[in-house]
C-alpha cells in the first residue's frame, strides 16, 4: 500500500490522532521535510485539523519543517553540555563548515542546528550527525567526524 492510501485508511478509521507522530516521521523521511503543502495534505488524509498537524510537526525539532542538507548536524545546547564547553564545539563546527546554526551549506552537504538535550549528558558535550550520537567531543575531533559524512 502506498503512503497516501495508508494515510487515508488511518483517517477513515478515525485513528489519525494516535498515528500522527508515526505518519509525520515517515513523511519526513520520504519528503525530506514537512512543508506546509505536505502538512495540509497529511491533515486532509488523517482527517485532523491542519493546525493540529502543524503544531505537532513544529514542536519536534526532529520533524523538520524546512528543507535540510544531506547530513544534519545537531549540537546539544542544554545546560550539562554547556557546562562542558559545548560553545567551543559549536564554534568549531561553525568554522569548519562556514555556516551558523540554522543554516545549510551551499553544496547542501550539511545542515547545522542546535538542539535541546539529546539524552547523552553522560558524554557531554554531545552532538548528533544524522542518527548517530558523538559524545565527549573535543575540537580536535570535529574535522574527522565531519569527514565521515559526505
Amino acid at each position, binding site marked *: 500500500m502506498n503512503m497516501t492510501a495508508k494515510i487515508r485508511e488511518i483517517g477513515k478509521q478515525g485513528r489519525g490522532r494516535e498515528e500522527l507522530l508515526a505518519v509525520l516521521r515517515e513523511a519526513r523521511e520520504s519528503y525530506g521535510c514537512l512543508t506546509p503543502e505536505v502538512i495540509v495534505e497529511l491533515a486532509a488524509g488523517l482527517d485532523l485539523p491542519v*493546525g493540529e498537524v502543524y*503544531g505537532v510537526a513544529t514542536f519536534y525539532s526532529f520533524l523538520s519543517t524546512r528543507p535540510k542538507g544531506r547530513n544534519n548536524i545537531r549540537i546539544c545546547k542544554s545546560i550539562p553540555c554547556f557546562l562542558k564547553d559545548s560553545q567551543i564545539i559549536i564554534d568549531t563546527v561553525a568554522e569548519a563548515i562556514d555556516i551558523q546554526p540554522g543554516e545549510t551549506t551551499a553544496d547542501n552537504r550539511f545542515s547545522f542546528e542546535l538542539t535541546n538535550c539529546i539524552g547523552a549528558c553522560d558524554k557531554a558535550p554531545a552532538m548528533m550527525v544524522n542518527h548517530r550520537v558523538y559524545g565527549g567531543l573535543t575540537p580536535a575531533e570535529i574535522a574527522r567526524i565531519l569527514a565521515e559524512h559526505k
Partner: protein
Amino acid sequence: MAKPGKGTITVTINGSAAMGSEGMTLLELARQSGIEIPTLCHHEELSAIGSCRICVVEVEGARTLVASCHTPIAPGMVIQTHSEKVLAARRMITELLLASHPDSCLVCDKANRCQLRHVATDLEAAQPQVRGRKRCYPIEDVSPYIKRDLSKCVLCRRCVAACREMAGQNVLHMAYRGFNSKVVVDTDRPLDKEVCRDCDICVNVCPTGALSLVEESGSKKKGKPLFIKG
C-alpha cells in the same frame, strides 16, 4: 455547603473543614467556601487547561505546589491557599509573565479589564526581577472582525479550547515550542475571514489584550479602576 452523604468529601482548607462532592476541584471548593484563588488559564465553561500555574496551592504531603484548577479534592486533604510559599510562587509566576509582556498597558484597549493586570495588582507583584526576551509579533488585523496582538499573549490556551469546545470549530492551535510557542491558524497563517466565522468567542475568553474586536479600539470603556486588595 453540601450535606454530608454519599460522595461527600471533607477536607481542611486554611484551617477550617470544608465539604465538597466527589470530582470537585480544589478551586471549586475554595470558591464555594468564599476563598478567592487567582486564575488565568482556567475558565468555568472550558475543560481544565492547567498551563499558567497562577492557581497553585499547598497540599500537605504533596511534593510540589499543585494547581487547584485541575486537582480534584480527596478525603482528608489539608490545603493552604494563601501561605507565604503559595503567594511567593504566584508572585514569581506573575513576574515571569510580566517580564516577557509588552509595556503597553497604558494604551492597551484591554486596560483595566485585563486579567493579567488584575492578578498582578492583587498579588502586589513587583517589577520583574528577571530580564527576559520579549516575544514580539506584528499585530495581525487582516480579519475585519478580530485583531490579534500576540506579543501580549500569555499562552494560556483559552482561545484554543474555546474555539474547539464552545464554537465547535478547530481554527486555533498551539505550535512551536518553548519560548517560540504560539497560537497559530493552520500552518501559521493570518486569521482571516476564510478560516474564522467571527463568533467572538475567543475574544471573550482571552484574559489579556492579545485578542480584541477590531471596532473595539478606543471605543469601549476601559473598566473600573483597579484597587489593590488589602
